[in-house]
């Protein structure tokens, strides 16, 4: 997977409620610009909203990086949610539907994973968390995980 030539990443702070709304808005703009359909846009924005809220609530804030990517002819959008918070101690548990420490529904990580094509979490206790997701444009061949 490569960053699309001639396109720079957009970096947005995630430190407040208003930042979540702004992040959703920016993800929508980026997805629409790439030609994502309405359902795909909605899924990606919803996943972004869940993950950005995790960054804010569990990570104590951080940033979102929006990057257009390419893999052969496939085009997509990569979103990275980065925080320097306490990290996730038990990732497998955190990925379980219904598991929550934040008073929510516990669908943030597990639900967001179902909405996107690629999903990766890098975390270690005390070392912060980075969640990276990729959505490929529908109709394009989707690269298998591990070949990118």
């Amino acid at each position: 997977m490569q960053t699309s030539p001639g396109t720079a990443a957009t970096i947005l702070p995630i430190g407040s409620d208003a930042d979540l709304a702004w992040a959703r808005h920016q993800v929508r703009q980026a997805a629409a610009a790439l030609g994502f359909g309405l359902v795909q846009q909605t899924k990606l924005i919803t996943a972004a909203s869940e993950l950005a809220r995790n960054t804010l609530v569990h990570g104590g804030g951080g940033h979102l990086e929006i990057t257009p990517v390419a893999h052969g002819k496939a085009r997509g959008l990569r979103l990275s949610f980065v925080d320097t918070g306490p990290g996730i101690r038990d990732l497998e548990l955190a990925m379980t539907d219904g598991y929550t420490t934040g008073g929510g529904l516990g669908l943030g990580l597990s639900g967001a994973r179902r909405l996107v094509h690629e999903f990766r979490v890098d975390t270690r206790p005390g070392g912060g968390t980075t969640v990276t997701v990729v959505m490929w444009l529908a109709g394009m061949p989707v690269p298998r995980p591990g070949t990118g």
Partner: protein
Amino acid sequence: MSVPSPGYAAPVPVLALGDVLLVTLQGDLHDDTAERLRQDLTRRIARHSGGRVTGVVIDISGVEVVDSYLGRVLAEIAASARLLAARTVLTGMRPAVAITLVELGLTLPGLLTALDVERALELLSGPDPAGARAPDAEGGG
């Protein structure tokens, strides 16, 4: 597609139509706006000046994204309303939002839905199958 206002932080207006409260959500809701709506609605159901509130209609046809936070707030509004003897009907959900909510794992059980406000009002004018009780109050002996 209209460009949603990125900063919908203003309070959401609540309209009284007879014994039904109507709320129309538009654009992108901030978390605290949704939370304020929940408190506002619950208060208005509890002490409605013109008599009792029997129903709440929440129209989300202007909402492009419902995440688990907003979904939870909507479900909690319905649950509180139910405890105060009022039914809540969610109307106008966009197809893309419905598809996304199911994949997210948020199917909002217990929330009545209708395709539009007119049909929601029809639904509310009919008999309440659960009576005026909260569903949880059943079977307690």
